[in-house]
């Protein structure tokens, strides 16, 4: 009971992009604690053979291939049963996951089966002599940071790390042994029948290549007020985007949503109007070069990532800004 075990996630025939962020987190944690780090990948045996070989080129104690035909497609029941058995075999003190949608679907159940609680969506990990490993996660949509640690001396500490909190390119290279683990799974105990992934409609709005985006959130209040934002976008020559609640309400189509369940953007200019900046939104736009945030709440987390902030009434500031931009453009044309 000492090491760190990282559970990698696959996507299609390759890796989920967050897997190596989790691996970097696991290696860092293991180094801090002075213990070994290993990693595991689950799937149908032949399908994961290449992936586990790649994993064996990292600085790890072991690369575990957890293979079974019942793991060909993800199910919570399959993953929980296989990982419960792997953890009993490897006996890690810490298990680290990437905080993906898939992990959110099964890791809390796995933790429950182990009599543990998942410390989920972790933004930072610290190791100190007094507390051991300490995990930071956000409360109140990012308005507070809460530091957690595992309570008991025994047991397993399970944690998942937030997208973008650790750098995939920080993973240390090395060499390790590939170990096969054959979990005992029963088809009858897998209760859900998953279908293939599909997309509702071809995405027609591609915001990923937009140079300028004006994005709107709950602060806009009413659908009728959207015109303020559309006018600002028109004056700038920017695309209009939104945070999830605006698309949930049907005020703008889902394909204009920026965030973890929408598009990831990296424009030269991102103007966030009435957006509080919940982490689900921030992960979609933190690649923007310059962020201007207009919000009435000075404590809104959007100001954490903004280059220029305006604490004020968007219903006054936005029309004034639209007017000033139009005037500046007119001057430029006459000049």
């Amino acid at each position: 009971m000492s090491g760190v075990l990282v559970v990698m996630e696959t996507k299609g025939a390759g890796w989920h992009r967050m897997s190596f962020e989790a691996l970097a987190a696991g290696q860092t944690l293991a180094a801090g604690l002075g213990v070994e780090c290993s990693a595991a990948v689950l799937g149908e045996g032949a399908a994961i053979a290449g992936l586990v070989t790649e994993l064996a080129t990292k600085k790890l104690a072991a690369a575990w291939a957890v293979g079974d035909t019942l793991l060909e497609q993800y199910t919570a029941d399959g993953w929980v049963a296989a990982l419960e058995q792997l953890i009993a075999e490897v006996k890690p003190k810490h298990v680290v996951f990437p905080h993906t949608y898939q992990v959110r679907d099964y890791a809390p159940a796995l933790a429950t089966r182990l009599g543990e609680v998942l410390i989920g969506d972790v933004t930072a990990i610290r190791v100190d002599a007094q507390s051991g490993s300490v995990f930071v996660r956000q409360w109140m949509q990012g308005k507070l940071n809460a530091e957690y640690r595992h309570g008991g001396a025994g047991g397993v500490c399970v944690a998942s790390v937030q997208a973008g909190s650790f750098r995939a390119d920080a993973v240390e290279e090395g060499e390790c042994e590939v170990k096969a683990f054959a979990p005992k799974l029963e088809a009858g105990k897998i209760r859900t029948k998953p279908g293939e992934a599909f997309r509702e409609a071809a995405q027609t709005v591609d915001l990923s290549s937009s140079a300028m985006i004006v994005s709107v959130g709950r602060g806009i209040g009413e659908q009728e007020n959207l015109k303020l934002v559309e006018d600002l976008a028109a004056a700038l020559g920017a695309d209009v985007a939104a945070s999830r609640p605006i698309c949930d309400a049907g005020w703008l189509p889902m394909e204009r949503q920026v965030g973890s369940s929408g598009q990831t953007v990296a424009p030269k200019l991102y103007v966030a109007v009435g957006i509080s900046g919940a982490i689900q939104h921030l992960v979609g736009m933190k690649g923007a070069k310059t962020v201007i945030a207009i919000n009435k709440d000075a404590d809104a987390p959007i100001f954490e990532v903004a280059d220029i902030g305006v604490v004020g009434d968007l219903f006054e500031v936005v029309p004034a800004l639209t007017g000033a931009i139009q005037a500046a453009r007119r001057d430029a044309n006459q000049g």
Partner: protein
Amino acid sequence: MKIVVAVKQVPERDAVVRVAADGRGVDESDVAWTMNEPDAYALEEALQLKERAGDGEVVVLCAGPERVQSTLREALAKGADRAVHVVTPESGAGSLGERDSLDVARLLAEAVRGETADLVLTGLQSDDLGAGQTGVVMAELLGVPHATLVLQVELVSGGIKVKRELEDGWMQQVEMPLPALLTVQSGGNRLRYATLMGIKRARQKEMREVEAAAAGKRVDEIVRVSPPVRVKQTEMLTGSADEIAAKLVERLKFEVKVL
């Protein structure tokens, strides 16, 4: 069809949140409370399922102190048939803040067990602690299959078929037998408002209070809660709307160079 909807009462989005005096929780003294939004979508899905089926019962469930009854009443006003309130102390031993996710899920699962529901729905996560675990942990404790991030539920022979959200705009159908537990993603439906008639009727509906079991030993421990340290240097602009607009235009011209 009997559906239990587990809801949570959370601070309003615009609430000013301060760290509690002991540095390990949230100061709740000035907080205004509301129904957790993903849970409101779970309630909406339950009400629509019942309406489509033409019969059934929607039971709304919430754990917390006295104040959570306003959230339960709101659910009753929107159309839930009755409410179960698992009563916990306002603060100190046994209060929600002293319990970990596993312990809170245990309280809720215990209340669900008495109901023999076909379906248990809850929001995919709470807007306050954002752990996103309560539903999945309840499913494990109840020994029923589950799906998360659900947008639509359809009754099929032998159980249900749900549409769930995957990452990057992808979706997936999943089938499972009943009873089952689903965590609902926002946006699958439009939320309804309580009507005046609904609010009036809600007063007559049953609100059963159940004493919460004593808190178990926490598995995890909260060391410290603090406001985040700002990592980026944000230039804050002040003045009248026109002054701010002029300053912004200057930045857009000379720094961002888009005008």
